[in-house]
């Protein structure tokens, strides 16, 4: 299951400290890791804490002494971590955080949508949205590679139940290959009694501005680091994912923008529609922060129409991926019209029929719309 893919990703990365608090649908991630620690299969400290806020706080502390650190959560748990996500970014501690996308309450829901992780958009944590359980495991390993290079935390994101609780075969690579890919973590400054420094202390306007610039520079470097990490991963393990992944986009008139598990459904639908002679393609956004602006401009440059499917909403505006795509294209020379669709909130199924309806509506419309609710019961 996707949850165990996260656990194995952490184990293969030889994490040294794990601090987490259970929440559905994340629970099995840390259950398996705690078992691995108890069995001696994984040489790591498992820190039991009383809340998600403490889970990330403990992770930051561990990372500050130079330990490779992992935590995982969902929805309200991630919201409770919010303050500490800012802290992990500001302190430049490359903690990897598995977040299983679960809809925010109320009303209580345990099913998937992306509003939990996307609410952390502006904190400075990197975000990667996964489509399969294999990708989840591989992304954890890649995330440490990139996070420790640029000294920023990274969130590995997967859909509740569609991935977290769904069993599918995952190739678990040999430890020695992962060791070859991922060297031990060695930060330039750490909490060390032999070389004393204070971290994150009061900084007035004289230097705070420059420290924010450093974070943005690191995010900017991370784009290139993700590409490098993915290429190197591909050479060793034979699997590559890209910052974005295109499917039959080259000659497509309509390009669908997707993320997470909706991508697989969209690919199948594109095949069906292509057989009927419709030129449709899919562009999956995998790395959301740093946002792959150049790649998006390059891929969408030739499209006649773009339809963005969002399993999330920024109330009072539109879907969040839609906003991001629009903003990436605004200063670009070619700006295709974009339709914004909201679908699948609270775990509602997004089927090939849903995707077909989106394509049809985009095809028939000659005036782009920002916010279209698909499958709303009237």
């Amino acid at each position, binding site marked *: 299951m996707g949850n165990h893919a996260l656990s194995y990703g952490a184990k293969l990365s030889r994490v040294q400290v794990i601090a987490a608090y259970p929440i559905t649908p994340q629970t099995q991630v840390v259950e398996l890791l705690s078992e691995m620690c108890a069995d001696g299969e994984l040489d790591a400290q498992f820190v039991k804490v009383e809340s998600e806020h403490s889970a990330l706080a403990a992770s930051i502390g561990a990372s500050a002494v130079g330990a490779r650190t992992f935590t995982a959560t969902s929805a309200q748990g991630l919201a409770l971590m919010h303050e500490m996500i800012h802290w992990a970014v*500001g*302190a430049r501690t490359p903690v990897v955080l598995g977040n299983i996308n679960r809809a925010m309450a109320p009303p209580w829901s345990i099913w998937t949508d992306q509003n939990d992780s996307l609410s952390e958009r502006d904190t400075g944590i990197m975000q990667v949205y996964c489509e399969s359980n294999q990708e989840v495991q591989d992304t954890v390993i890649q995330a440490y590679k990139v996070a420790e290079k640029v*000294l920023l935390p990274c969130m590995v994101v997967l859909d509740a139940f569609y991935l977290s609780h769904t069993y599918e075969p995952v190739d678990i690579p040999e430890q020695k290959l992962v060791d070859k890919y991922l060297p031990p973590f060695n930060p*330039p400054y750490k909490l060390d009694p032999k070389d004393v*420094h*204070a971290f994150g202390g009061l900084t007035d306007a004289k230097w705070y501005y*420059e*420290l924010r610039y450093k974070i943005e520079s*690191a995010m900017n470097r991370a784009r290139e680091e993700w590409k490098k990490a993915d290429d190197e991963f591909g050479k060793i393990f034979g699997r590559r994912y890209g910052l974005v992944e295109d499917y039959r986009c080259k000659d497509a008139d309509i390009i669908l923008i997707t993320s997470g598990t909706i991508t697989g459904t969209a690919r199948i639908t594109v095949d069906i529609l292509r057989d009927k002679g419709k030129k449709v393609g899919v562009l999956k956004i995998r790395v959301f922060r740093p946002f792959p602006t150049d790649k998006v401009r390059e891929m969408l440059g030739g499209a006649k129409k773009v339809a963005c499917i969002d399993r999330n909403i920024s109330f009072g505006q539109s879907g969040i991926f839609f906003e991001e795509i629009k903003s990436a294209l605004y200063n670009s020379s070619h700006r295709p019209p974009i339709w914004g669709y909201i679908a699948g909130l609270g775990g509602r199924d997004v089927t090939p029929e849903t995707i077909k309806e989106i394509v049809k509506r985009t095809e028939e419309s000659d005036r782009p719309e920002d916010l279209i609710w698909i499958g709303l019961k009237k």
Partner: protein
Amino acid sequence: MPNAKKIIWKGVDDMPEMAVSIASMRINKTASWRNLKPIIDYNKCKPCGICWKFCPEPSILLKEDGTPMIDYDYCKGCGICAEECPRNAITMHREER
């Protein structure tokens, strides 16, 4: 004793990536904003250690015989020691700069 090294930089290109203080607290004295200064009247003090226990910084150091001493390099003048002293041996005085 560990070395406390100062990190000096000119701008974004040579400054550390992390928000690491210019120097450790050993160099970075933090009492500069103190407005009220606690003074111990050693005639009244019968070293009980209560001020040492309550000081949140901790800026009260105990000599070997238990006599308290205020570390003015770090004391911020919060006055908790003066409030808690059962013999009123600590009084707060306005800083003169």
